[in-house]
């Protein structure tokens, strides 16, 4: 048994920054706090603000790179698209699950990846899993392709290109251009 040298260990540790190391995260944290306490009062707004500073500060070394949302508009549209697809996906799925299973034509298909960022890949893989009839089952070790299991496929190539166009492209736009 050989153990590959995990590349992630080589990631440089960033020196600690005191002031808002992750601005996006901080906003996210602040909103989260208000969601959690389920009330908006002056006290909680302040406390949330404090935590929005404290937690990113404490956990910054766990975040290898700072995420920057390049195109909030695209991101918003992408989220709506995914939500819609989830609903559709489930309707289709329900039919397939309850219908005759013998007619299903499952398949493993390989989706070559253009995006390289782990975060973006994760988003893509998750999206694929949540949407119609597909579950991302594996990621190649060099992060060049995603193995997707499809519940029912008529034409594999079409499915692949559809996925790439519908989900990968916007993600690429959001994170990498």
């Amino acid at each position, binding site marked *: 048994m050989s153990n590959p040298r995990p590349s992630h260990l080589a990631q440089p540790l960033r020196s600690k920054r005191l002031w808002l190391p992750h601005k996006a995260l901080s906003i996210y944290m602040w909103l989260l706090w208000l969601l959690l306490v389920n009330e908006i009062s002056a006290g909680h707004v302040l406390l949330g603000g404090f935590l929005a500073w404290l937690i990113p500060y404490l956990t910054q070394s766990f975040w290898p790179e700072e995420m920057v949302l390049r195109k909030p508009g695209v991101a918003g549209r992408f989220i709506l698209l995914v939500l819609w697809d989830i609903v559709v996906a*489930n309707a289709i*799925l329900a039919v397939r699950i309850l219908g005759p299973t013998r007619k299903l034509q499952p*398949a*493993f298909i390989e989706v070559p990846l253009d995006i390289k960022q782990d975060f973006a890949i994760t988003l893509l893989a998750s999206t694929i899993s949540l949407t119609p009839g597909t579950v*991302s*089952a594996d990621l190649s070790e060099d992060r060049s392709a995603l193995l997707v299991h499809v519940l029912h496929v008529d034409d594999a190539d079409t499915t692949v290109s559809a996925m790439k166009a519908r989900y990968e492209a916007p993600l690429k736009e959001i994170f990498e251009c």
Partner: protein
Amino acid sequence: MLIEIIVSVAVLIGASFALIGSIGLVRLPDFYLRLHGPAKATTLGVGGVLIGSMIYFSASEQSVSLHELLVAMFLFITAPVSAHIVAKAALHIRLPCIERTKGKPWQSGES
């Protein structure tokens, strides 16, 4: 009353999806197929229930109750990853898929 109806519909739809997901889990012929039910249907089902709850508590307590969103969000983030990692495990131990499956899974460790 309207709110009651909305909540009722939401929870019923949600529960139905949860049930459907679990039916899929029992009914579908191989592991990879069964994976689809929980990954999507069940997650959505719980989402529906959570929306119902959100509306219900917002109405009954006269103030916006959004913290169910947190659970929902959490589920939507984690469910696909759960599915992914279980599938990865299944692929690793070379769990067979039904014969008519097109394409072949990667051999474990291949890229």
